[in-house]
């Protein structure tokens, strides 16, 4: 029961539905009556044929190497279609630019490898226009002692349905850091599954969702600690208003024998209207004895006492609320390691919250 299977077969009964426990808050079966047609590029044109160059979206991220996924087709610099993306030391920063234009269904899979000992950055921007249904799967391998920072900025169409799932396989001593920033879609789910070997491997798993209108975003993560002495630090924050819905499902599994695991999970959301909704399911499943694991989960409104304090100092109410909301989210943005990406993320948050100068 996956979106990819449904798109490949055209059979909507294969869509995940609310009967699947993991999909109860992101029901696709109930939403999608029929799938839009798959995009078929004309022979010899490649995927870019459907749009003129000036219609292409410009990612806010910059990198010397770019891989574009346009309507399911992969067009990379020096890459053949469907070839794996392997980082190399000459271009450790790669922009993965995912664009979907039109009322189409698409399934895409991409394999990404960070060789042993290399520090790499994957900047991903996802943008869509239209009533599309897409499934993108990333299969990421970080080899021993390698590190990957993934920063994903998702800007889907309010009518677009998008599922992104990444499986991350870490070798001992490898590092994976991730920050997802999204303003949601008609239905949107960004899933990350991490196989964590411990043995010095470290994971940071962050997210920010800022939702308005009737947008929906679902950040689902599963981290499985299979070896000793691994760390996971997870922090997700959301701000929802209007009739938007945010979903956070975080699961950390510590398998038997994975002693010395340190895992922290935090999810905090602000609900700024009566009709907005946040559904959160933090889970720690611990089968080892000697571990330090904790999770914190809060959903609430802005602190009215803090707003009064700021107003007493002279800030009008809207300024005070925007400042406190931005600060709330800022804690996650500050954790982004790549400086350029961090500044872009900060500006993006300001723009979404209406606090940009």
């Amino acid at each position, binding site marked *: 029961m996956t979106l990819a299977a449904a798109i490949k077969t055209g059979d909507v009964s294969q869509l995940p539905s609310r009967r699947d426990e993991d999909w109860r808050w992101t029901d696709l079966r109930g939403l999608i009556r029929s799938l839009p047609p798959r995009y078929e590029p004309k022979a010899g044109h490649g995927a870019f044929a459907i749009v003129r160059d000036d219609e292409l979206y410009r990612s806010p991220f910059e990198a010397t190497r770019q891989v574009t996924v346009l309507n399911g087709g992969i067009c990379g610099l020096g890459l053949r279609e469907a070839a794996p993306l392997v980082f190399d030391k000459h271009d450790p920063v790669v922009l993965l630019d995912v664009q979907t234009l039109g009322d189409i269904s698409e399934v895409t899979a991409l394999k990404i490898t960070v060789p042993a000992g290399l520090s790499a950055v994957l900047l991903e921007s996802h943008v869509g226009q239209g009533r599309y249904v897409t499934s993108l799967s990333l299969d990421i391998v970080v080899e021993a002692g390698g590190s990957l920072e993934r920063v994903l900025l998702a800007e889907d169409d309010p009518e677009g349905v998008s599922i992104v799932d990444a499986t991350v396989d870490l070798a001992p001593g490898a590092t994976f850091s991730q920050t997802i920033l999204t303003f949601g879609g008609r239905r949107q789910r960004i899933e990350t599954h991490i196989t964590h070997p411990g043995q010095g491997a470290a994971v940071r798993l962050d997210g920010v969702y800022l939702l308005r209108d009737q947008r929906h975003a679902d950040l689902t993560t599963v981290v499985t600690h299979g070896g000793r002495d691994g760390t996971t630090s997870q922090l997700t924050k959301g701000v929802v208003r209007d009739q938007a819905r945010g979903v956070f499902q975080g699961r950390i599994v510590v398998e038997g024998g994975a002693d010395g695991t340190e895992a922290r999970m935090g999810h905090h959301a602000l609900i700024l209207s009566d009709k907005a909704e946040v559904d959160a399911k933090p889970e720690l499943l611990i089968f080892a004895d000697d571990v330090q694991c904790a999770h914190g989960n809060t959903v609430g409104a802005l*602190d*009215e*006492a*803090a707003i*009064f*304090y*700021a*107003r*007493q*100092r*002279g*800030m*009008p*109410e809207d*300024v*005070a609320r925007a*400042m*406190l909301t*931005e*600060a*709330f989210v*800022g*804690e996650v943005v500050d954790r982004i390691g790549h400086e350029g990406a961090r500044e872009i993320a900060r500006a993006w948050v300001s723009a979404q919250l209406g606090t940009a100068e």
Partner: protein
Amino acid sequence: MGPPGSAKGRPEDKLWNKSDDDGICEFPGPMTSMLSITNLHATVGEKQILNGLTLEVPAGEVHAIMGPNGAGKSTLSYVLTGRSGYEVTQGTATLNGEDLLALAPDERAARGVFLSFQYPLEIPGVPALTFIRTALNAQRKARGEAEISAPEFLKKARATATALKIDFDMLKRALNVGFSGGEKKRMEIFQMAMLEPRFLILDETDSGLDIDALKIVAAGVNALRGPERGMLVITHYQRLLDYIKPDRVHVLSAGRIVASGGPELALQLEAEGYDKYVQVAA
């Protein structure tokens, strides 16, 4: 309730709550008051806290408000600054003739009203300097003044921090987050010095301060004394008034000013307690 007999024989005391609830109280003070409060009644929830409070603070003067727990001291500070949940049911409060109660909290701040909070709030994620600069520029904008430039702001912040013995690096940290009680109070005075308000309300500024911090804070407050500024110093104890010398001392009990006098009234309260004033108000 009539003027209590217990106050007789102390000519310095003035009892100007005439105490019938409908009566506007006569005030014997100067006509050029900066803060003027007349017959103020206020409720918090269902509870009546201020009960016909009348007070005049002229420019250039420091007035102390003392009183027992539950007298309405903090409520007075919140009513004057416009905190929601504190509802004025009767009476007036003006600053330089302008109706304070009709203004939003930030508008009052822009007119120069500053409250040093008894329990300063923690503002996670907002560096102290960012917070204060945002506040200062918002006030300036409201007054039609130009924004302060970054170098000018930083220069002033450095000088002020040095005077208040505040480590400048602390100002780069999130405001009040993880600060000790004394550090928070010092940050209140720092903000006060940066914002240069015209009317200061200090709510229990001495609580949580050791004697060295108290001296620093008091020096910071005294530096702001001037002919154009008024201050209302709310305190339980006389100790703070050793360092911030008031021109007048008022006793607040059950939501009204029940006695007023010179600085010596504070000493007398320290010696005798509030008991008789609680009875007065009852």
